[in-house]
């Protein structure tokens, strides 16, 4: 049961298409796991649909129709998408960025058993997968921007509560937190930030430029 959801701001911006790519990835990942937010996202899409349905049109040239007709005459209907294997840790949108399932992730150690893999996304925000061994605490850090963390496996707890598979934690400038992975299972998360994290100790801060976190 998912208890921590996306905000309306994020859902609307996802629907409007104004988020950086890494945030789109985070939203798509959560929507793959959460029917409640998916229904909300579809209702924001409906607002976009209503704006188009009601809006004035711009005149389209005759060539445009002709060219489109020429294209569809050669087109076979697209095959239905194959059913997704929902049993994996990585939902489909994430698997697409990793290039497969969890065993395809190119983990790099960042100390204390914690590993990360940066996913290639466009400007404006960074997406990475984090692996936190069971019972391990992440270094205490604050944020300059917004960080969205989505749990994919295991669970972690911090000042904001307990977060398990599918749960979203959204941290902003003001927060500083020290998530601790649940003891029972290694924790895997997707973390997306629109600004670098600031760790509250001298060593991690020095390491930051090298770790890209």
């Amino acid at each position, binding site marked *: 049961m998912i208890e921590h959801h996306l905000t309306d701001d994020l859902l609307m911006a996802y629907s409007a298409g104004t988020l950086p790519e890494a945030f789109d990835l985070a939203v798509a990942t959560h929507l793959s796991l959460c*029917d409640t937010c*998916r229904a909300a996202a579809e*209702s924001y899409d409906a607002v976009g*649909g*209503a704006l188009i349905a009601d809006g*004035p049109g711009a005149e389209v040239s005759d060539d445009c129709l002709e060219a489109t007709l020429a294209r569809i005459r050669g087109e076979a209907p697209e095959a239905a998408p194959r059913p*997704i294997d929902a049993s994996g840790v990585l*939902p489909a*949108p994430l698997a*697409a960025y990793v290039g497969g399932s969890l065993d395809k992730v190119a983990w790099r150690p960042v100390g204390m058993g914690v590993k990360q893999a940066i996913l290639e996304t466009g400007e404006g925000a960074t997406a990475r997968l984090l692996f936190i061994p069971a019972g391990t605490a992440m270094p205490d850090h604050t944020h300059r921007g917004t960080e969205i963390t989505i749990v994919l496996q295991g669970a972690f707890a911090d000042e904001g509560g307990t977060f398990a598979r599918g749960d979203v934690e959204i941290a902003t400038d003001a927060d500083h937190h020290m998530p601790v992975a649940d003891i029972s299972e290694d924790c895997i998360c997707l973390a997306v930030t629109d600004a670098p994290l600031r760790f509250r100790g001298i060593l991690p801060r020095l390491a930051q430029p090298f770790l890209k976190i």
Partner: protein
Amino acid sequence: MPDMLRNAQRVEDFEPGAPIPVELPHPPRHEPAARSVHDAGMTAAKGLPDPWTGRLHDIRENRSEAAFVAVFEHFAPRVKAFLMKSGSDAALAEEIVQDVMTTVWRKSHLFDPARASVATWIFTIARNRRIDTIRRTRRPEPEDLPWGPDHEPDATDILGLQQDSAKLVDALKTLPEKQRLLIEKAYFGDLSHREIAAETGLPLGTIKSRIRLALDRLRHAMT
């Protein structure tokens, strides 16, 4: 606003293998006997307020070019206007319009009239195409819910969705001008709230609260 889409289907709404109830709002008259639940839904959809669902059905089932031309003539100008408001020039907008309408043809079988109106479906295709064009990569989309062929839309859901969609269009029309403009900017202007603040000179807090007010009004209109 999850309550707006009362008909958003959930996986757990269906028991595997259980028959799906179909309540036709009125019996189809000139249609051949429906071969499947989906056909029944789509056939019923032809008598519903939104004519575009029926046209999509014609494209899907009969590869009807006439239906496609009708959909094109209605939606292509709207999609073009949307793209131009989002910053495309006319030539690029028409190129993307071609892609969008070709996708409508190719993916007509993926359109689910119980989940979205045709306008909403085309909006999402156009939005994704716009983003793909800017980023040159595919926009991350949530995975498809595991609905099998047993989980086809039923006519009541389609009707409910269409009524909601029509209500939403009306509700947007009655929004105060300032709120409506901000919603339009948020959707069409390709601007974040922060950028809208910079462009309009309004404080970010004002923009956020106006958008929130607008959404509250829409929500209220939907209940």
